[in-house]
């Protein structure tokens, strides 16, 4: 285990990370043996429902919470014994964007620059640059109390970037945001990542993990239940569904053709669905077979399994629609 931790160049590594709250019979194991290895320059998505242990894991990796078991290294430093070094290397935007509403955006950034001990001569330039980067130049001198949710999150992100960290932790960066603000934040996260920042983000949104993450880990009840590239994970769940809309008169013929490629799946009326055993590669063969049978296709759609299917497969319950 220790060799695993010391031999790696990965910016985030955790081995058997555990956190128990309370003791005795009432002890709750919020994080129960999490192993993680995040590669340099990747966006790693930590996906799970509320209370799954995402935030607790992030709090341990960012030195805010002491692990009760296992160990972790961030940016090459041990989170338990080298917490100061870890703090200097990471940027963190926590879940509720804890921003003092009585201060202005620019004041908060200035304070953050002082707290990280940046050279005083650079403060004004750095603050201006970050405000512009997150699109808050015009609002920089307004009190944060007047900001919208999206603006707060963007300021929170700017605060996390003040000392140009190489590793960025984002705990549910878009929870509660409207779709526009969410997409703006996604763009910013992608841009940061393109510039070489390693990002670990937690989310309860499948789409967010799907859109942003190079790899995801799905966590439930404090344990990682599944991990990998989103497309791999989805592929592992099973065949994608091919939906075909044909002339009502040709439905029966079409079903006969489709059964040759996989089992038929329930769909809306007027449409046929088949689980393609060969995956997306099988689509062309289906199209040729339908054409050979003289069937006119009105609509064709291949639906890959979603991360929700992955989640359901791994945990036995669905993430989406769950409160």
């Amino acid at each position, binding site marked *: 285990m220790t060799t695993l931790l010391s031999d790696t160049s990965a910016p985030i590594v955790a081995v058997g990370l555990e956190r128990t709250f309370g003791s005795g019979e009432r002890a709750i194991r919020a994080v129960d043996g999490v192993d993680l290895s995040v590669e340099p320059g990747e966006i790693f998505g930590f996906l799970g429902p509320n209370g799954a242990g995402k935030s607790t894991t992030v709090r341990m990796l960012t030195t805010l*919470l002491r692990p009760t078991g296992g160990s972790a290294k961030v940016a090459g430093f041990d989170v338990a014994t080298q917490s100061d070094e870890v703090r200097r290397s990471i940027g963190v935007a*926590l879940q509720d964007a804890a921003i*003092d509403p009585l201060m202005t955006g620019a004041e908060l950034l200035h304070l953050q620059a002082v707290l990280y001990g940046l050279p005083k001569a650079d403060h004004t330039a750095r603050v201006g640059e970050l405000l512009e980067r997150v699109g808050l130049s015009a609002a920089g001198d307004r009190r944060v109390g007047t900001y919208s949710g999206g603006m707060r999150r963007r300021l929170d992100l700017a605060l996390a970037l003040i000392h140009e960290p190489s590793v960025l932790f984002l705990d549910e960066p878009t929870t509660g945001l409207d779709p526009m603000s969410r997409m703006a934040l996604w763009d910013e996260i992608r841009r940061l990542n393109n510039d070489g920042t390693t990002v670990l983000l937690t989310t309860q949104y499948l789409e967010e993990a799907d859109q942003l993450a190079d790899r995801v880990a799905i966590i439930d009840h404090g344990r990682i239940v599944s991990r990998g590239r989103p497309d791999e994970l989805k592929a592992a769940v099973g065949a994608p569904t091919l939906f075909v809309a044909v002339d009502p008169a040709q439905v029966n013929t079409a079903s006969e053709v489709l059964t040759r490629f996989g089992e038929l799946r329930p769909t809306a009326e007027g449409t046929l669905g088949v689980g393609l055993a060969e995956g997306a590669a099988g689509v062309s063969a289906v199209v040729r077979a339908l054409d050979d049978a003289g069937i006119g296709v009105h609509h064709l759609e291949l639906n890959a399994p979603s991360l929700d299917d992955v989640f359901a497969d791994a945990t036995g319950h669905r993430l989406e629609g769950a409160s």
Partner: protein
Amino acid sequence: MSTATAQQLVALSKRSVQSILRQPSVVVPSMVFPLFFVALGTSSFGRAISIPGFPVVDSFLDFALAGSVVQGVLFGSITSATALATDIETGFFDRLLLTPSPRVGILVGRLAGAMVYGFAQTVFFVVVLLPFGLSIKSGVLGLIAMMVGGLLTALAVGAVMSAMALRTGSSEAVQGSFPLLFVLLFFSSAFFPRQTMDGIYRRIADLNPVSYLVEGFRSLTIGDLSTVAVAQTIAIPAAIAVGGLGISMRSLRRRVAAS
């Protein structure tokens, strides 16, 4: 202390002062209520100064100043402790813990804010009441001692209340101590001299540290400058501050370690 650390503590202190100034709803009561008490006292009990046993004073106003200073500073200091608890509630505390700045910064910043405010309150009460006939018998040096006393009282109360903020992490709990401070204030010699009190009230006031705190300020207002009066005005809050800082530092360490 390194320059960076000093800059960090200054920046956090500045933030605390700014946050007090930006909340008129907080500033106004702790500035206006004590003046209201003075006005009420002076107009209702003006002639009480001729009761046998009442200290020798020119006017009830001179007598009442000390009570209003301590009252104002006491209530003003709750503000800083409440703000500290709010920092914990909102997660701002975590944000500070995530930076490589010293852990003690958050406490120092809030207490510095309380001290600046306590100092300003003392000056404010004196300046506002001067045109109404207030006189400070101990002169400019006595006034300076009172301002230092106001600052130290703010530190003392702020430190004790901050310990509560750090223990509970709840701004409601801190504000819930407000009635307790009220009781401490009313069962002291803040509004009437101990000499004219009787029975149980007298015994409580005799035991209540707030009595001695107020009487320090009072002897500087109604009496000549004396070493004893200056020492009382400065040493009592300083002693409470030392104790309070000890408790709040321990609470801070405990909170940081518990996480």
